[in-house]
């Protein structure tokens, strides 16, 4: 029932792409955005940037982890129901396997210093990678100055006033609707 943009043969490569994304999504949900953008939009050309942004919006507004939600949605867009299941498996499997192997030897965490140092290196790298992804995606999001104003307002709401992301997404969607209906009315009155 999906959109079937992939052939059955490509299912395996889709699984592998999501497995890689799952394995390298360290440091929370949004860290997967640069990886997904490069693997799915740039390298495989499976989705356009616009669709990618829409999927992230829906993933953020639905219950559950953002990484899982976006995997389900992208998988569905690429290969219907089977695609959704396989993409989700790909994303979940790396964490499942690594936690399982940790649980096997678990005796209470005394985190290794080397691991902590590795993460001190990874976090600044993620900041740059995420910002680079934003830089690439902004072309698909910003069509005019109002879009830029909406983004800046949204950022202030998120950072300064700690507004919930879902509210920011819905409010921006409503500005889209207002602009559409106001624009349409103006056209109609100009025409009549």
């Amino acid at each position, binding site marked *: 029932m999906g959109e079937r943009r992939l052939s059955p043969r490509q299912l395996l490569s889709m699984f592998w792409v999501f497995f890689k994304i799952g394995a390298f999504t360290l440091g929370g949900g949004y860290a997967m955005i640069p990886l997904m953008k490069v693997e799915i939009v740039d390298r495989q050309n499976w989705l356009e940037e616009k669709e990618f942004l829409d999927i992230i919006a829906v993933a953020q507004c639905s219950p559950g982890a953002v990484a899982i939600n976006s995997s389900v949605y992208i998988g569905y867009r690429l290969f219907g129901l089977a695609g959704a299941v396989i993409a989700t498996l790909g994303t979940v499997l790396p964490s*499942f396997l690594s936690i399982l192997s940790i649980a096997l030897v678990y005796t209470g965490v005394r985190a290794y210093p080397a691991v902590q140092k590795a993460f001190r290196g990874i976090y600044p790298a993620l900041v740059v990678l995420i910002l680079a992804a934003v830089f690439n995606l902004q072309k698909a999001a910003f069509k005019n100055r109002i879009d830029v104003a909406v983004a800046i307002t*949204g950022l202030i709401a998120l950072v300064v006033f700690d507004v919930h992301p879902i509210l920011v997404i819905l409010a921006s969607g409503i500005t889209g609707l207002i602009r559409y209906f106001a624009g349409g009315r103006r056209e109609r009155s100009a025409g009549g």
Partner: protein
Amino acid sequence: MIYRVLFLSFFKIGLFSFGGGYAMIPLIQKEIIDINGWLTLEQFMDIIAISQMTPGPIAVNAATFVGYRIAGFWGAAAATAGVTAPSLIIILLLAFLIKKYRGLAWVDAFFSGVRPAVIALIVKAAYSLGRGSILGIKDIILALAVLAGLYIFKLNPILIIALAAAAGILIY
């Protein structure tokens, strides 16, 4: 049956946690410690720490860990399936509805209004991560090296993450 209890308990966690990541922690804590008494608070804090050092969403990591502690491999599988199932069901429903109504002008207008907000969300994520991690001169140099790796040497983000981990072990 314990598998069913695990599945349902984590299904609830998946269903009621919006916004992902750390927003899920209080809910997971309530289900696992307060309601079911599956872990002590200390063990739970350990899982959060492990989650930060392993790939994947915290909810999935916690599900796998708790499931394994309670009922072995199949417990881990049941809990992980439980936490993932709501995403599958709800996103498939939404995807279906959106596909159906795509092309309606007002639906498209709504989504084009949303896109700038998604940019803001991603910048916020970078900001939160950066505020806690880019603190000194070493962090700034590492960030600049990543920038060079990305734009001058055109490296893949996955390779960059691996290199940054190695650099972290060397310089900190």
